[in-house]
């Protein structure tokens, strides 16, 4: 049995999974998105007609498919954590690889969507709705990329057998961040694509 190394990760009972510092980061990010969502909502209340009309031109399919992609990807990450808790490093790495793959699918779909909008001549200055649509989705898009980078680092370490049932804070840290990326899209999709 490996002796659990003295970890610096303050894992008090009741603390959320993963490194405490990632949670500070997650909540700071959620605050940023929260302010953005609020700004969208209140700006909409001044231009309801404009928002309703512009919203019709969005590609709801791609938004919904991407929601499913991220939810499933989040689920894969849950399975990865469950796997490492039982000591299955290989399985853990495979689940994470699946999650990263789905992240890639999200990115491809999103790029197609952006491409369609840009070739239709839509830009940040088109109107306030598109300003928000583009900045919210691009900002989220960048978080997907960051999340994939974090997950890749975790996957490589898991593949080398770097995590154990006793010490797998790294996996939980990456997982928590990825769930946050999912959570934001869960709210963004109905807010921007559906509610009218």
């Amino acid at each position, binding site marked *: 049995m490996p002796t659990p190394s003295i970890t610096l990760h303050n894992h008090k*009972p*009741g*603390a*959320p*999974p993963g490194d405490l510092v990632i*949670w500070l980061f997650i*909540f700071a990010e*959620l*605050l940023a998105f*929260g302010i953005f*969502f*609020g700004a969208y*909502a*209140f700006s*909409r*209340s*001044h231009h*309801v007609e404009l928002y*309703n009309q512009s919203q019709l031109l969005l590609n*709801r399919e791609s938004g*919904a498919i991407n*929601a*499913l992609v991220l*939810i*499933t990807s*989040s*689920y894969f*990450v*849950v*399975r990865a954590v*469950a796997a490492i808790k*039982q000591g299955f490093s290989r399985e853990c790495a495979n689940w994470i690889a699946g999650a990263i793959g789905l992240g890639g699918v999200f990115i491809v779909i999103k790029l197609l969507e952006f491409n369609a909008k840009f070739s239709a001549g839509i830009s940040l200055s088109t109107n306030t709705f598109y300003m928000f649509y583009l900045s919210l989705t691009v900002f989220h898009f960048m978080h997907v990329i960051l999340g994939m980078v974090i997950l890749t680092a975790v996957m490589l370490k898991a593949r080398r057998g770097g995590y154990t049932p006793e010490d797998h804070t790294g996996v*939980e840290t990456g997982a*928590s961040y990825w*769930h*946050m990326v*999912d*959570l934001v899209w*869960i*709210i963004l*999709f*109905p*807010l921007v*694509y*559906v*509610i*009218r």
Partner: protein
Amino acid sequence: MNHPPQPHFVRPCTRIWLVLVVLTAVTYSIGEAGLGGKNVMLFVLAITLIKSQMIASYFMGLRKTSPMWRIIMGSWLVIVGGMIASAYLMGLQ
């Protein structure tokens, strides 16, 4: 502490995933049907907040944490949901 992996017919997290998929489909169909208005908005928002809470509780694992963490996440959801709803209602006038 040496349980063998428990035999699950369907793991709890898989059930959560299924519910999330179904709820997303509901949201999407409402969009496809072109529905709008106050009640539809409240319904869609409620689904969204339920989904978010499920992700926070089950996927992010907050349900096993101390109240402080759940309160922070819960109030974020309430505030964001509240802002969206009240801004929508302001727009109706």
